[in-house]
Protein backbone atom coordinates (compact mmCIF):
# COMPACT_ATOMS: atom_id res chain seq x y z
CA UNK A 1 0.00 0.00 0.00
CA UNK A 2 2.60 2.52 1.09
CA UNK A 3 5.04 1.24 -1.54
CA UNK A 4 2.36 1.83 -4.14
CA UNK A 5 1.72 5.37 -2.87
CA UNK A 6 5.46 6.01 -2.88
CA UNK A 7 5.74 4.85 -6.46
CA UNK A 8 2.92 7.16 -7.50
CA UNK A 9 4.38 10.25 -5.87
CA UNK A 10 5.97 12.46 -8.49
CA UNK A 11 9.51 13.77 -8.37
CA UNK A 12 12.85 12.67 -7.05
CA UNK A 13 13.08 11.11 -3.61
CA UNK A 14 13.61 14.31 -1.60
CA UNK A 15 10.48 15.68 -3.22
CA UNK A 16 8.67 12.47 -2.41
CA UNK A 17 9.68 12.77 1.23
CA UNK A 18 8.34 16.30 1.37
CA UNK A 19 5.11 15.22 -0.28
CA UNK A 20 4.72 12.34 2.15
CA UNK A 21 5.18 14.59 5.16
CA UNK A 22 2.69 17.10 3.79
CA UNK A 23 0.14 14.39 3.09
CA UNK A 24 0.54 12.95 6.59
CA UNK A 25 0.15 16.39 8.14
CA UNK A 26 -2.97 17.06 6.10
CA UNK A 27 -4.38 13.74 7.24
CA UNK A 28 -3.74 14.58 10.89
CA UNK A 29 -5.45 17.95 10.51
CA UNK A 30 -8.42 16.32 8.84
CA UNK A 31 -8.66 13.80 11.66
CA UNK A 32 -8.39 16.38 14.45
CA UNK A 33 -10.71 18.92 12.92
CA UNK A 34 -13.35 16.76 11.29
CA UNK A 35 -13.21 13.07 12.01
CA UNK A 36 -12.42 12.89 15.72
CA UNK A 37 -14.94 15.56 16.78
CA UNK A 38 -17.59 13.61 14.91
CA UNK A 39 -16.84 10.26 16.45
CA UNK A 40 -16.09 11.64 19.89
CA UNK A 41 -19.69 11.69 21.19
CA UNK A 42 -19.84 7.98 20.56
CA UNK A 43 -16.81 7.22 22.64
CA UNK A 44 -17.68 5.61 25.92
CA UNK A 45 -15.35 7.39 28.27
CA UNK A 46 -16.36 10.97 28.65
CA UNK A 47 -20.04 11.13 29.38
CA UNK A 48 -20.61 13.31 32.38
CA UNK A 49 -24.27 14.15 32.38
CA UNK A 50 -27.08 12.09 33.61
CA UNK A 51 -29.62 11.42 30.91
CA UNK A 52 -31.52 14.55 30.37
CA UNK A 53 -33.35 16.16 27.56
CA UNK A 54 -30.90 18.04 25.47
CA UNK A 55 -33.17 18.78 22.58
CA UNK A 56 -36.80 19.23 23.56
CA UNK A 57 -37.51 22.17 25.75
CA UNK A 58 -40.32 21.55 28.17
CA UNK A 59 -43.25 23.91 27.89
CA UNK A 60 -42.73 26.80 30.20
CA UNK A 61 -44.48 30.05 30.78
CA UNK A 62 -43.50 32.89 32.96
CA UNK A 63 -45.59 33.67 35.97
CA UNK A 64 -46.39 37.35 35.92
CA UNK A 65 -43.98 39.08 38.22
CA UNK A 66 -45.50 40.77 41.17
CA UNK A 67 -48.17 38.14 41.54
CA UNK A 68 -48.65 37.33 45.15
CA UNK A 69 -50.40 34.04 44.61
CA UNK A 70 -48.09 31.12 45.10
CA UNK A 71 -47.09 29.37 41.93
CA UNK A 72 -49.03 26.20 41.36
CA UNK A 73 -47.13 23.15 42.38
CA UNK A 74 -46.00 21.21 39.36
CA UNK A 75 -47.78 18.01 38.63
CA UNK A 76 -45.39 15.17 38.44
CA UNK A 77 -46.59 11.98 36.93
CA UNK A 78 -44.85 8.98 38.29
CA UNK A 79 -44.70 6.95 35.15
CA UNK A 80 -41.55 4.93 34.68
CA UNK A 81 -40.78 6.21 31.20
CA UNK A 82 -40.58 8.84 29.99
CA UNK A 83 -38.89 10.21 33.02
CA UNK A 84 -40.35 13.30 34.57
CA UNK A 85 -38.11 16.05 35.66
CA UNK A 86 -39.69 19.01 37.21
CA UNK A 87 -38.64 22.57 37.11
CA UNK A 88 -36.69 23.49 40.18
CA UNK A 89 -37.64 27.10 40.32
CA UNK A 90 -40.79 27.56 42.30
CA UNK A 91 -41.10 30.94 43.88
CA UNK A 92 -42.90 31.07 47.12
CA UNK A 93 -45.16 33.92 47.98
CA UNK A 94 -42.33 35.41 50.00
CA UNK A 95 -39.95 35.33 47.10
CA UNK A 96 -42.39 37.05 44.83
CA UNK A 97 -42.65 40.09 47.01
CA UNK A 98 -38.96 40.72 46.59
CA UNK A 99 -37.00 41.74 43.61
CA UNK A 100 -37.89 38.98 41.23
CA UNK A 101 -37.33 40.18 37.73
CA UNK A 102 -38.19 37.36 35.47
CA UNK A 103 -36.87 34.27 37.05
CA UNK A 104 -40.23 32.97 38.03
CA UNK A 105 -40.83 30.58 35.23
CA UNK A 106 -42.72 27.55 36.29
CA UNK A 107 -43.80 24.66 34.17
CA UNK A 108 -47.39 24.35 33.17
CA UNK A 109 -48.50 20.85 33.75
CA UNK A 110 -46.24 17.89 33.66
CA UNK A 111 -43.01 18.14 31.82
CA UNK A 112 -42.26 15.11 29.80
CA UNK A 113 -38.67 14.36 29.19
CA UNK A 114 -37.57 11.59 26.98
CA UNK A 115 -34.39 10.14 28.30
CA UNK A 116 -31.73 10.65 25.73
CA UNK A 117 -28.13 9.94 26.51
CA UNK A 118 -26.01 12.97 26.28
CA UNK A 119 -22.46 12.26 25.52
CA UNK A 120 -19.82 14.58 26.63
Amino acid at each position, binding site marked *: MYAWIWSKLPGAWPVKVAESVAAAAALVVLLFVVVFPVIEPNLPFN*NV*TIDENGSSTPPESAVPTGSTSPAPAPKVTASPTPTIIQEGNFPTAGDLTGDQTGS*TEVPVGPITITPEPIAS
Partner: protein
Amino acid sequence: MAVVIPVKVSKPTDPLPGDRARRAVGVVGEVFITFGVLLLLLCVYQLWWTNVQSAKATEVARDLISQDFVPTAGAAAPAKGTKPAAIPRPTYAKGFALLYIPQINDKVWRLPIIQGVGLDVLAEGAGHYPNTALPGQIGNFALAAHRATHNEPFRDIDALKPGDKVYVETKTGWYTYVLDKYKIVKPTDTWVIDPVPGKPNATPTIAQITLTTCNPRWASYERWIWWGHLTGTALKSAGPPDGINPNGN
Protein backbone atom coordinates in the same frame (compact mmCIF):
# COMPACT_ATOMS: atom_id res chain seq x y z
CA MET B 1 29.46 -31.52 -26.82
CA ALA B 2 27.70 -29.21 -24.58
CA VAL B 3 24.02 -29.60 -24.14
CA VAL B 4 22.21 -26.37 -23.79
CA ILE B 5 19.31 -26.74 -21.49
CA PRO B 6 16.79 -24.01 -22.06
CA VAL B 7 16.08 -22.28 -18.82
CA LYS B 8 13.08 -20.09 -18.51
CA VAL B 9 14.31 -16.80 -17.11
CA SER B 10 11.47 -14.89 -15.59
CA LYS B 11 11.30 -11.25 -16.39
CA PRO B 12 11.32 -8.92 -13.38
CA THR B 13 7.73 -7.98 -13.99
CA ASP B 14 6.44 -11.50 -13.86
CA PRO B 15 5.02 -12.47 -10.49
CA LEU B 16 7.10 -14.99 -8.65
CA PRO B 17 5.37 -17.98 -7.16
CA GLY B 18 3.75 -16.91 -3.92
CA ASP B 19 4.25 -13.25 -4.72
CA ARG B 20 0.61 -12.44 -4.74
CA ALA B 21 0.06 -13.96 -1.31
CA ARG B 22 3.07 -12.16 0.06
CA ARG B 23 1.80 -8.87 -1.25
CA ALA B 24 -1.64 -9.48 0.24
CA VAL B 25 -0.14 -10.17 3.65
CA GLY B 26 1.91 -7.01 3.32
CA VAL B 27 -1.17 -4.94 2.62
CA VAL B 28 -3.03 -6.43 5.57
CA GLY B 29 -0.08 -5.63 7.80
CA GLU B 30 0.02 -2.07 6.58
CA VAL B 31 -3.70 -1.68 7.23
CA PHE B 32 -3.21 -2.90 10.79
CA ILE B 33 -0.32 -0.55 11.37
CA THR B 34 -2.35 2.32 9.93
CA PHE B 35 -5.24 1.51 12.23
CA GLY B 36 -2.91 1.44 15.21
CA VAL B 37 -1.49 4.83 14.29
CA LEU B 38 -5.02 6.22 13.94
CA LEU B 39 -5.89 4.98 17.42
CA LEU B 40 -2.76 6.57 18.82
CA LEU B 41 -3.73 9.83 17.12
CA LEU B 42 -7.18 9.55 18.67
CA CYS B 43 -5.54 9.25 22.09
CA VAL B 44 -3.43 12.30 21.38
CA TYR B 45 -6.57 14.15 20.35
CA GLN B 46 -8.50 13.17 23.45
CA LEU B 47 -5.76 13.52 26.03
CA TRP B 48 -4.07 16.61 24.71
CA TRP B 49 -5.86 18.46 21.95
CA THR B 50 -9.31 18.63 23.60
CA ASN B 51 -7.65 20.15 26.66
CA VAL B 52 -5.87 22.73 24.54
CA GLN B 53 -9.07 23.63 22.73
CA SER B 54 -11.22 23.70 25.85
CA ALA B 55 -8.73 25.75 27.82
CA LYS B 56 -8.98 28.38 25.12
CA ALA B 57 -12.79 28.16 24.93
CA THR B 58 -13.03 28.36 28.72
CA GLU B 59 -10.96 31.51 28.70
CA VAL B 60 -13.21 33.08 26.09
CA ALA B 61 -16.37 32.12 27.98
CA ARG B 62 -14.90 33.46 31.22
CA ASP B 63 -14.11 36.78 29.60
CA LEU B 64 -17.62 37.06 28.21
CA ILE B 65 -19.12 36.41 31.63
CA SER B 66 -16.75 38.86 33.29
CA GLN B 67 -17.74 41.53 30.81
CA ASP B 68 -21.36 40.75 31.54
CA PHE B 69 -20.70 41.22 35.25
CA VAL B 70 -19.48 44.76 34.83
CA PRO B 71 -22.35 47.06 35.75
CA THR B 72 -23.55 49.00 32.78
CA ALA B 73 -22.73 52.67 33.01
CA GLY B 74 -25.77 54.68 33.91
CA ALA B 75 -27.75 51.61 34.84
CA ALA B 76 -30.01 51.59 37.81
CA ALA B 77 -28.29 51.34 41.15
CA PRO B 78 -27.91 47.83 42.49
CA ALA B 79 -31.04 46.49 44.05
CA LYS B 80 -31.52 47.55 47.60
CA GLY B 81 -32.02 45.05 50.31
CA THR B 82 -29.98 42.11 51.35
CA LYS B 83 -30.84 39.65 48.62
CA PRO B 84 -29.22 39.81 45.20
CA ALA B 85 -31.58 40.46 42.34
CA ALA B 86 -32.58 37.32 40.51
CA ILE B 87 -30.94 36.86 37.16
CA PRO B 88 -33.06 36.01 34.14
CA ARG B 89 -33.02 32.43 32.95
CA PRO B 90 -30.22 32.31 30.39
CA THR B 91 -30.61 31.05 26.88
CA TYR B 92 -28.80 27.93 25.75
CA ALA B 93 -25.02 28.18 25.61
CA LYS B 94 -24.98 31.50 27.43
CA GLY B 95 -22.57 31.78 30.32
CA PHE B 96 -24.13 33.39 33.37
CA ALA B 97 -22.05 32.56 36.43
CA LEU B 98 -18.61 31.61 37.68
CA LEU B 99 -17.85 28.63 39.88
CA TYR B 100 -15.20 28.49 42.60
CA ILE B 101 -14.23 25.41 44.56
CA PRO B 102 -11.17 26.22 46.70
CA GLN B 103 -10.28 22.57 47.32
CA ILE B 104 -9.82 21.95 43.60
CA ASN B 105 -8.96 25.48 42.64
CA ASP B 106 -6.44 24.63 39.96
CA LYS B 107 -9.37 23.50 37.83
CA VAL B 108 -12.46 25.07 39.34
CA TRP B 109 -11.71 28.71 39.87
CA ARG B 110 -13.76 31.22 37.92
CA LEU B 111 -15.00 28.27 35.92
CA PRO B 112 -17.72 29.44 33.53
CA ILE B 113 -21.18 28.11 34.23
CA ILE B 114 -23.05 27.93 30.97
CA GLN B 115 -26.67 27.15 30.27
CA GLY B 116 -27.22 23.66 28.89
CA VAL B 117 -25.35 20.38 29.03
CA GLY B 118 -24.57 19.81 25.37
CA LEU B 119 -21.07 18.85 24.30
CA ASP B 120 -20.44 22.31 22.91
CA VAL B 121 -21.26 23.82 26.28
CA LEU B 122 -19.27 21.32 28.31
CA ALA B 123 -16.21 22.09 26.22
CA GLU B 124 -16.26 25.62 27.67
CA GLY B 125 -16.83 24.99 31.34
CA ALA B 126 -19.54 23.60 33.56
CA GLY B 127 -22.98 23.07 32.07
CA HIS B 128 -26.17 24.02 33.88
CA TYR B 129 -28.99 21.52 33.51
CA PRO B 130 -31.45 23.77 31.75
CA ASN B 131 -34.53 23.03 33.83
CA THR B 132 -32.99 23.22 37.24
CA ALA B 133 -32.89 26.13 39.65
CA LEU B 134 -30.63 29.11 39.17
CA PRO B 135 -27.95 30.00 41.72
CA GLY B 136 -29.42 30.71 45.12
CA GLN B 137 -32.94 29.78 44.17
CA ILE B 138 -35.07 27.35 46.06
CA GLY B 139 -34.68 24.05 44.27
CA ASN B 140 -31.71 22.28 42.82
CA PHE B 141 -28.99 24.14 40.97
CA ALA B 142 -27.52 21.26 38.95
CA LEU B 143 -24.22 21.34 37.05
CA ALA B 144 -22.25 18.91 34.91
CA ALA B 145 -18.63 19.06 33.81
CA HIS B 146 -15.96 16.86 32.33
CA ARG B 147 -13.75 14.81 34.59
CA ALA B 148 -11.41 13.70 31.84
CA THR B 149 -10.58 15.41 28.54
CA HIS B 150 -11.86 18.85 27.49
CA ASN B 151 -9.94 20.70 30.18
CA GLU B 152 -11.32 18.25 32.77
CA PRO B 153 -12.75 20.80 35.25
CA PHE B 154 -14.05 18.15 37.65
CA ARG B 155 -10.89 16.04 37.43
CA ASP B 156 -10.45 16.05 41.19
CA ILE B 157 -14.09 15.64 42.13
CA ASP B 158 -13.10 12.68 44.28
CA ALA B 159 -10.81 14.91 46.35
CA LEU B 160 -13.76 16.85 47.72
CA LYS B 161 -15.11 16.16 51.17
CA PRO B 162 -18.37 16.91 52.93
CA GLY B 163 -18.14 20.39 54.35
CA ASP B 164 -16.13 21.76 51.43
CA LYS B 165 -17.44 25.00 50.07
CA VAL B 166 -18.60 25.82 46.59
CA TYR B 167 -18.98 29.45 45.58
CA VAL B 168 -21.08 30.75 42.72
CA GLU B 169 -20.74 34.29 41.45
CA THR B 170 -23.46 35.81 39.32
CA LYS B 171 -23.91 39.32 38.00
CA THR B 172 -25.77 40.29 41.12
CA GLY B 173 -24.59 38.12 43.95
CA TRP B 174 -22.38 35.60 45.65
CA TYR B 175 -23.75 32.25 46.74
CA THR B 176 -22.00 29.89 49.11
CA TYR B 177 -22.91 26.24 49.12
CA VAL B 178 -21.56 23.56 51.43
CA LEU B 179 -21.18 20.04 50.12
CA ASP B 180 -23.09 17.44 52.06
CA LYS B 181 -22.57 14.05 50.48
CA TYR B 182 -21.68 12.28 47.31
CA LYS B 183 -23.09 9.24 45.63
CA ILE B 184 -22.17 7.13 42.64
CA VAL B 185 -25.22 6.44 40.54
CA LYS B 186 -26.25 5.02 37.22
CA PRO B 187 -26.23 7.33 34.19
CA THR B 188 -30.00 7.07 33.97
CA ASP B 189 -30.66 8.26 37.52
CA THR B 190 -32.22 11.55 36.58
CA TRP B 191 -33.68 11.90 40.04
CA VAL B 192 -30.37 13.22 41.30
CA ILE B 193 -31.13 16.61 39.80
CA ASP B 194 -34.75 16.73 40.94
CA PRO B 195 -35.65 19.82 42.96
CA VAL B 196 -35.62 17.53 45.96
CA PRO B 197 -33.30 14.72 44.90
CA GLY B 198 -34.90 11.36 45.38
CA LYS B 199 -38.33 12.77 46.15
CA PRO B 200 -39.96 13.40 42.80
CA ASN B 201 -43.21 14.76 44.19
CA ALA B 202 -41.77 16.95 46.89
CA THR B 203 -41.82 20.71 46.67
CA PRO B 204 -38.38 22.09 47.45
CA THR B 205 -37.97 24.26 50.48
CA ILE B 206 -34.21 24.86 50.39
CA ALA B 207 -31.68 25.83 47.75
CA GLN B 208 -29.39 22.98 46.83
CA ILE B 209 -26.55 22.38 44.42
CA THR B 210 -25.75 19.21 42.50
CA LEU B 211 -22.50 18.49 40.69
CA THR B 212 -22.43 15.61 38.21
CA THR B 213 -19.53 14.10 36.32
CA CYS B 214 -18.42 10.73 35.04
CA ASN B 215 -17.17 7.83 37.07
CA PRO B 216 -14.77 6.10 36.85
CA ARG B 217 -12.72 8.92 35.46
CA TRP B 218 -11.69 7.20 32.25
CA ALA B 219 -14.87 5.29 31.77
CA SER B 220 -18.33 6.53 32.20
CA TYR B 221 -20.63 3.73 33.04
CA GLU B 222 -21.47 5.55 36.30
CA ARG B 223 -21.90 9.13 37.45
CA TRP B 224 -20.33 10.83 40.42
CA ILE B 225 -22.82 13.11 42.16
CA TRP B 226 -22.17 15.72 44.85
CA TRP B 227 -24.98 17.42 46.69
CA GLY B 228 -24.75 20.53 48.78
CA HIS B 229 -26.96 23.22 50.20
CA LEU B 230 -26.93 26.98 50.25
CA THR B 231 -25.46 28.54 53.36
CA GLY B 232 -24.76 32.08 52.34
CA THR B 233 -25.99 34.76 49.99
CA ALA B 234 -24.41 38.14 49.55
CA LEU B 235 -24.86 41.13 47.34
CA LYS B 236 -22.19 41.66 44.74
CA SER B 237 -21.53 45.04 46.26
CA ALA B 238 -20.61 43.37 49.53
CA GLY B 239 -17.55 41.90 47.84
CA PRO B 240 -16.50 38.30 47.53
CA PRO B 241 -16.92 35.93 50.46
CA ASP B 242 -14.01 35.25 52.76
CA GLY B 243 -11.28 33.32 51.07
CA ILE B 244 -12.32 34.25 47.58
CA ASN B 245 -10.33 36.66 45.53
CA PRO B 246 -11.84 36.55 42.07
CA ASN B 247 -8.70 37.92 40.53
CA GLY B 248 -6.37 35.65 42.42
CA ASN B 249 -5.37 32.06 41.83
